[in-house]
């Protein structure tokens, strides 16, 4: 994913400084207090960054989730004498649970619904803290939260600090592991190219939900430590300003970068000291900073650092792990899936895009669908892959009716597809894009991924090799480590095909793969399609380029204005008079222009 800019030695040094700090400052010093607080804020910021930076869901009410953790610990330890650790777990679960309950409807909708709903949630929660005096003690707040203790030993400021540092490091490592896994790839896919997430079988709703649960749980833990550190919890601690503060921390450090939240929080803790005289201008400055950063440094300080670093020391052209793409790799045969479509209809407004289309794609064939613009070819693909819901008809993939299943379900059943304009995730490398294809095939769950259990690591390694193999298969292995956004159009198409194959696709739908390709790229594409077919996979290709179709297709169906005009072997179909008329018009036909 993102190439490391902060070298290992610097990371170790940062941790060293954090661990050595208590030796140089007094146990009750202000410096230690601030450092503990910094750690707590970093925990929450790491979570918010995972959500807003990677998954693209901006939470404007993160203070509320911190508040849930803080109040849980304060109330359970003070009123019910629970031990801190149990109370912290409850706080974490409550933060995630209440958050999910509130945000559930938002996951199906545009991302800004989520922003609004979290904003409203924080506001309502703030009011409820005051309203439910019997529970929360209203404005006065909960006083005298006891420090955590273990084995009869009560934590002073120093052990508390070490605990917070440990939790911060653990949170950082777990989030890093998740970000570098299939979940992280799915986050970025959902953020940037939702159709691509669907195409690999990743449910956008569930992906957003996973990011949010992790994020809210981390906010809950941060809140738990917040309560024991401050010993007093009041509604004033968790205002809308506090949510803005978290957001700004993450934006300042760098949205969607692992070190962003840490850098942002560090800088933030230095600024208030410098701006002590400007307290009343604070929110205005926050607003100005948010605006300026989003406009001029969307990846924050970390992004600026990375850019400067690259300019200063351009990374040497790294020899790719599998640069040897001269020989095409052998690939095990694929058991192709048949596709049977009958009576398919779809209307858009007043336009009947498809009007009762039947076609039957035998397993293992290379089936072309051609037709003039607006004849319903792409609509047909989108219906078959579940992106549209048809008005009537049936779509059978293999022997299973696919109608009514969502796009990601159909993808998981072994249907891969490409798009008219390649839908790769620009911020991920070519290799990561291909690995994203394996989303539904990976067995390691969230927990084993976050903990990097041996079998999860082995699986990731194996899939990486496999993905490299597919890049080699399509002939762009030399691009493995380059971000997809920087790769030329023609190769992006090939990577998209590799992604579909990586998903274990047995039926591959290609939407105008030849569009915008050069002559040599076209030849490569042609050979590639024939090789994939040769392995046994079924290919359905929607294409304008009739030479390509004539060369690769075993069957052709011609669509015109939403109905099947002709179907059969390419040679026969292309000499059909009605087909020629549809393509070239009456006059051209009479003039005797050859097909």
């Amino acid at each position: 994913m993102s190439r490391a800019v902060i070298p290992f030695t610097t990371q170790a040094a940062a941790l060293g400084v954090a661990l050595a700090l208590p030796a140089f400052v007094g146990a009750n010093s202000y410096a230690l207090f601030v450092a503990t607080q910094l750690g707590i804020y970093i925990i929450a910021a790491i979570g918010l960054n995972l959500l807003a930076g990677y998954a693209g869901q901006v939470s404007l009410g993160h203070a509320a989730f911190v508040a849930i953790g803080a109040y849980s610990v304060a109330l359970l330890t003070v009123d019910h004498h629970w031990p801190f650790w149990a109370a912290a777990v409850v706080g974490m679960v409550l933060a995630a649970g209440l958050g999910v309950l509130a945000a559930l409807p938002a996951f199906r909708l545009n991302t800004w619904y989520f922003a609004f709903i979290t904003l409203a949630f924080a506001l309502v929660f703030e009011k409820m803290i005051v309203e439910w005096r019997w529970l929360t003690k209203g404005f006065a707040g909960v006083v005298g939260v006891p420090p955590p203790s273990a084995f009869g030993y009560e934590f002073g400021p120093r052990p508390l600090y070490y605990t917070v540092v440990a939790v911060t490091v653990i949170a950082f490592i777990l989030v890093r592991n998740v970000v570098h896994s299939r979940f992280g790839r799915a986050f970025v896919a959902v953020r940037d190219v939702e159709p691509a997430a669907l195409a690999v079988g990743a449910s956008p709703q569930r992906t957003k939900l996973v990011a949010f649960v992790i994020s809210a749980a981390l906010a809950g833990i941060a809140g738990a430590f917040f309560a024991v550190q401050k010993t007093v919890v009041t509604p004033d601690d968790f205002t809308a300003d506090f949510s803005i503060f978290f957001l700004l921390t993450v934006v300042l450090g760098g949205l969607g970068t692992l070190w962003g939240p840490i850098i942002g929080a560090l800088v933030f803790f230095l600024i208030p000291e410098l701006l002590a005289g400007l307290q009343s201008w604070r929110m205005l400055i926050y607003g100005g900073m948010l605006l300026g950063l989003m406009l001029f440094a969307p990846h924050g300080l970390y992004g600026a650092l990375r850019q400067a670093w690259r300019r200063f020391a351009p990374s040497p052209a790294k020899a790719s792990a599998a640069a040897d793409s001269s020989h095409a790799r052998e690939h095990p045969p694929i058991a192709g899936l048949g596709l049977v479509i009958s009576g398919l209809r779809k209307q858009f407004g007043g336009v009947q895009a498809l009007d009762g289309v039947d076609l039957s794609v035998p397993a293992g064939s290379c089936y072309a669908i051609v037709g003039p613009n607006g004849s319903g070819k792409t609509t047909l693909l989108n219906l078959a892959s579940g992106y549209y819901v048809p008005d009537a008809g049936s779509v059978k993939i293999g022997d299973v009716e696919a109608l009514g299943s969502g796009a990601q379900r159909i993808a998981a059943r072994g249907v891969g597809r490409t798009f008219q304009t390649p839908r790769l995730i620009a911020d991920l490398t070519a290799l990561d894009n291909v690995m994203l294809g394996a989303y539904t095939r990976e067995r390691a769950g969230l927990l084993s991924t976050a903990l990097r259990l041996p079998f999860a690591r082995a699986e990731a390694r194996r899939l990486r090799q496999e993905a490299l193999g597919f890049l080699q298969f399509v002939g762009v292995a030399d691009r493995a480590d380059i971000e997809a956004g920087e790769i030329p159009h023609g190769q992006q198409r090939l990577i998209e095909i590799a992604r579909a194959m990586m998903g274990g696709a047995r039926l591959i739908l290609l939407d105008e793969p030849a569009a915008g390709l050069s002559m040599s790229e076209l030849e490569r594409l042609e050979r590639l399609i024939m090789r994939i077919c040769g392995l046994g996979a079924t290919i359905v290709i929607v294409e304008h380029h009739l030479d390509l179709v004539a060369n690769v297709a075993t069957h052709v169906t011609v669509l015109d204005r939403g109905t099947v005009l002709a179907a059969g072997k390419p040679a026969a179909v292309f000499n059909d008079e009605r087909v020629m008329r549809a393509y070239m018009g009456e006059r051209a036909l009479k003039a005797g222009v050859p097909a």
Partner: protein
Amino acid sequence: MDIDVLAHGIVAGSLYALVAVSFNILYRPTNVFNFAQGELVMLGAMIFASLTSLAGMPWLVAFAGTLVAVGCIGLVEERIAVAPILARSQTGTGWVITTLATSLIISNLVGRFWGPDPILVKPPALLSMDSLDIGASRISSYEIALVLVTLVLVAIVERVYRTLKGKAVMAVAEDREAALLRGIDPGSLGRWSFFLGAAFAAMTGVLAAPILYASTSLGPDLLLKGFAAAAVGSIGNNRGALIAGYVIGVTEAVGASLLSPGYQEAVIFIVVLAVLLLKPEGLFGSPNARTV
């Protein structure tokens, strides 16, 4: 149910509907949901209050001046905070953060200039805030006028969308590139919609001021309730927004009278969540087909 509670719910609901319509005006061609909209409403109320109460300008002059001034601020917002973000990525949501930042900047600058004290704004001549005692309800002539004006405004906005320019707006909302090919300039429509959306927000502020007073606290409150009305009534649907505005206003009034005023927001929040859970596209919308 107390008829008075219902009446006041309708009055408040009219204001929420107007905020929702101002969201829609801006949203339709740009697909941007302006998080500074509440502050633009507040700004309208503040500028108008200053022009009439402090500078003693006649009602109509101050009204026009306020609309133009806030419209221009909306335009500046579009140029600085929205257009550059959309130029970078049409699908990204960076504008959530930049319009939020704009809202912070506006609300804090206004707080600096005007201070926290609410300003009393008198209704225009012939109308008053004195309650009329019609039957059991104690509603004022100004509040009745507000409800009627809201109906007229929604009807006017709907009419405008049926004109050629209005259709262009819908075309851009549907498919930006296709509209571009047909000679519609989405950029110019975006600028206009921000100007008009902001001016409409300012008008909402002017209309709200006699009832709610002009103060900096107007912004966040109307932002969230306006969003609630827009979401429940289906984004982009103005008639839906009107009805949803009433629903939100009445729910809030009834909730407050049955429980305690502290539950107002919570009740609305739960209604919005319930609606979105059952009908994600709102009560008056059809699910959009995904486009690939």
